[in-house]
């Protein structure tokens, strides 16, 4: 009796795999059907700090070499969707109600780039993200840049025999930007950037 039950279950599962996968034009979202995990971290512990600036002194830049670096580790054959949203300004004492007060807020322009070359990502291989609108963007990025080969077979769904660590790579997301310091009150100005990451 039990033998028959097992065989039936396997056949049902195999059938569902064969028919339930949605197939878009040349894209299959394997991330939806496998239990693949992502790991994010911070390569540098410090936040995006423009340091001490003088009131009324204009533009201050943080470039990519001093950026905040987010590490994203995942299955190298898959794409991730990165959504980044930053506040338009830094606010005195972090109080967003000062957003309309030019003496208590500082305009902030977000810039970003990513590197997903094989091995350790480098700034030299970074690709700048250009379509940032209102300090926000959504970007689909391969965990590992295409190696100029046809895409390989999808990784097998996780089983006892599957070790994701063997097919992982890490991509770097660089966050940086500029502020424009007008005649604002002296003090501490802060805001934040929210980064959300999913498999495609």
């Amino acid at each position, binding site marked *: 009796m039990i033998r028959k039950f*097992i065989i039936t*279950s396997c056949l049902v599962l195999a059938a569902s795999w064969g028919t339930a996968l949605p197939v878009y034009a040349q894209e299959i979202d394997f991330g939806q059907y496998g*239990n693949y995990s992502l790991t994010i971290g911070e390569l540098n512990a410090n936040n995006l700090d423009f*340091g001490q600036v003088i009131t009324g002194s204009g533009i201050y830049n943080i470039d990519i070499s001093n950026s905040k670096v987010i590490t994203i580790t995942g299955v190298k054959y898959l794409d991730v969707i990165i959504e980044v949203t930053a506040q338009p300004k*830094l606010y005195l004492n972090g109080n967003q109600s000062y957003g309309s007060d030019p003496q208590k807020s500082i305009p902030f322009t977000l810039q970003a780039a990513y590197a997903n070359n094989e091995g350790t990502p480098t700034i030299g291989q970074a690709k700048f993200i250009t379509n940032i609108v209102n300090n926000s963007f959504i970007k689909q990025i391969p965990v590992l840049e295409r190696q100029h080969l046809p895409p390989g077979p999808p990784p097998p769904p996780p089983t006892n025999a599957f070790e994701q660590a063997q097919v992982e790579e890490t991509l770097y997301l660089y966050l940086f930007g500029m502020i424009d310091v007008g005649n604002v009150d002296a003090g501490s*100005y*802060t805001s*934040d950037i929210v980064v*959300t990451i999913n498999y495609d």
Partner: protein
Amino acid sequence: MHKRFTHILLALVIMILLPERAPAQTRGNNLKLSVDVSATVLASSIEIITLRSINLSEADRRGNIITVDPASSTNAGKMVAVGTPYREFRISFFRQHELTHANSSNNLTFYYSVAGYKDDDQTTAELLDQDNRAFEFNEEGRFYLWVGGRVDITNAAPGTYQGEFTLEIDYI
């Protein structure tokens, strides 16, 4: 062989039916991270501009003492301090300084006095005393200072005397 195959399939079914393990905080899917952006704004440095030097004239002489009242005399020197609007600051200055004769080694001792006000109105200026209390820049970031003092010319040789007046202003 047949029995082992059965066991493997049974394990597979059991595994699929087990609930998923919850991911660790930075591992899983749909991960979120927040990055702080910050800057510390410093007030601009204070600039002091000399508008007029002190003029020691006979009109202010009484006996051998020449006195220039900084709160009223038109011969008082005038300066303006420029900084961040509405910021508080303190002023300090050397009250006594040597004036040097242009063509000899004769000196005169000058005792300075200073009056100040946030607007360009000498008649309302307040004498700065030893209390050295806090003052405040006006809405344009300015504070006006008039410099006077007194000097005893009993032993002064005729000629031109020159000296410097040093004033220090710091934000509080």
